[in-house]
């Protein structure tokens, strides 16, 4: 009796996700092994053509660039988020400090990107300021390059890193730091050897929450990037909507999915292996529950 009830409660959701999530993914997998039809769509013939064309140098460059941009943005984000989460955790006014981090993220995703266009654009705030000060007569091109993409990505993903880091640091027993200091560790040593290993769960979550959506970034490079910042997400989109080479789009999508999956598995494995004696806290639940911000980031 019990057995049947549980499955009937879960059935509608399972059915929905099977039809609208698993099936579309299965189609993508199937299409990646088929031949391209001239007018979009696919020919029902098995072929490795799409995977062979993955090896072309242009695509390789874009893949390496996507990796580089995602890594750079993730590293910057974590380096900034770590002291930030620490500061919130040690504050006497945690709620207020958290609130201030979250408020900007109630603003629409595109508006947050647009704000940077309004600041860095040729007609934007900074160029206006430079002209007013007589430092330039023309405008300086701040946008449409890789630097702008990384800056805006860091801006977009900081809270996704700060929140899980805060929630693990908050549970850390700070007496351990004192003990380390009393035993002669320097401040840096104590942080590196005592704090960092104990908050590894939060670090892993923070890295995953920034790296994965950034790796699949589409809107940010589209709006503030230029030729040197075209990323894999943009290739997939263009192959689907413009070139209409669905098998190629599908094979790239497969690649991105496998890489993100691999990243998730590697991170999860390293954190549990090196750290199984420490109580794990990924901070995922507390992020979405306390923050009220979307946890599945878009880029």
């Amino acid at each position: 009796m019990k057995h049947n009830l549980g499955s009937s409660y879960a059935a509608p959701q399972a059915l929905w996700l099977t039809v609208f999530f698993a099936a579309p993914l299965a189609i993508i997998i199937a299409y990646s092994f088929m031949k391209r039809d001239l007018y979009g769509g696919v020919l029902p013939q098995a072929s490795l053509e799409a995977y062979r064309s993955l090896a072309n140098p242009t695509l390789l460059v874009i893949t390496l660039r996507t990796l580089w941009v995602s890594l750079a943005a993730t590293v910057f984000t974590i380096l900034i988020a770590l002291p930030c989460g620490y500061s919130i955790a040690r504050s006497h006014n945690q709620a207020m400090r958290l609130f201030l981090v979250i408020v900007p993220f109630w603003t629409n995703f595109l508006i947050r990107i647009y704000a940077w266009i309004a600041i860095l654009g040729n007609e934007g705030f900074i160029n206006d300021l430079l002209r007013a000060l007589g430092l330039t007569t023309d405008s300086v091109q701040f946008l449409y390059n890789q630097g702008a993409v990384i800056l805006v990505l860091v801006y977009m993903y900081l809270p996704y890193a700060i929140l899980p880091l805060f929630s693990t640091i908050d549970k850390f027993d700070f007496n351990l730091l004192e003990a380390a200091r009393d035993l002669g560790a320097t401040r840096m040593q104590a942080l590196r050897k005592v704090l960092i290993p104990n908050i590894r769960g939060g670090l892993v979550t923070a890295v995953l929450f920034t790296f994965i959506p950034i790796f699949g970034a589409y809107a940010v490079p589209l709006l503030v990037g230029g030729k040197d910042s075209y990323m894999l997400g943009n290739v997939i989109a263009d192959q689907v909507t413009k070139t209409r080479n669905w098998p190629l789009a599908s094979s790239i999508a497969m690649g991105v999915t496998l890489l993100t999956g691999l990243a998730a598995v590697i991170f999860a494995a390293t954190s549990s292996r090196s750290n199984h004696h420490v109580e794990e806290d990924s901070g995922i639940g507390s992020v979405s529950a306390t923050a009220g911000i979307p946890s599945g980031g878009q880029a």
Partner: protein
Amino acid sequence: MAEKGHAKRRKGISFSDFVYGAVIAFLFAPLVVLFIYSFNNSRSGSWHGFSFIWYEKLFMGSGELWHAFRNSVIIALSSALTATLLGSLAAVGTSRYSFWYRPYVKSMSFIPMILPEIIVGVSLLVFFAGVGLKLGMITVWIAHTTFNIPFVYLLVSARLEEFDPSIIEAARDLGATEVQTLLRIILPITMPGIASGFLTAVTLSLEDFVITFFVAGPGSTTLPLFIYSAIRFGVSPVINALSAVMVVGTVLLIYPARNFLKAYAAH
């Protein structure tokens, strides 16, 4: 606290507090600039005096924008409702019972959250083309429900894990039927989880650009898609005014809602 002062050298402002302050400035600065420029009496970036023209344009002369806003609200409410219904039921099912496809439900509710949005969007587009469903409000609703379900499921499951399952057994022992238990015990207890799941779903839906971009058709332009077309080629002052209204609006809407939730959860 004395013991805190020991680990943290009291020498003015600490490094981490300094970074925190800088981050807050970094997070707010762009929004403040937008807010100020929404009152600019000029189309260009330079300041030409204070005016409300962009607000006037926003509220009087932007029919398309309001149509997009209407679409966004319809999609947000309908997809959040569907996702809340499906997600909450599934959470009750997987938290209380074990059945053969329980692991499938659990992993299916996790994977969409970690997959880059572009993959979800593209695969749905290809799927809709394959089954011959015309892109429009229905396809956007389906897509939004799909990415909302995992969040509702997660939040409701978290809530269900918090309470003592013996309450349910007690209810059953005292003769409550399954439906009575569901409606009079489980539903009230999980309500904060369901409500925050619903609110999260509404927020996510109003926010979404990437997935919607692929599955929307003519006539189903949502607010983010409209904003995208307006900012595609640079600065657009009406969007400055819209941003200001949206920031203030969301803070006014969400803050009381969150306080209400907290108060409810504390019961």
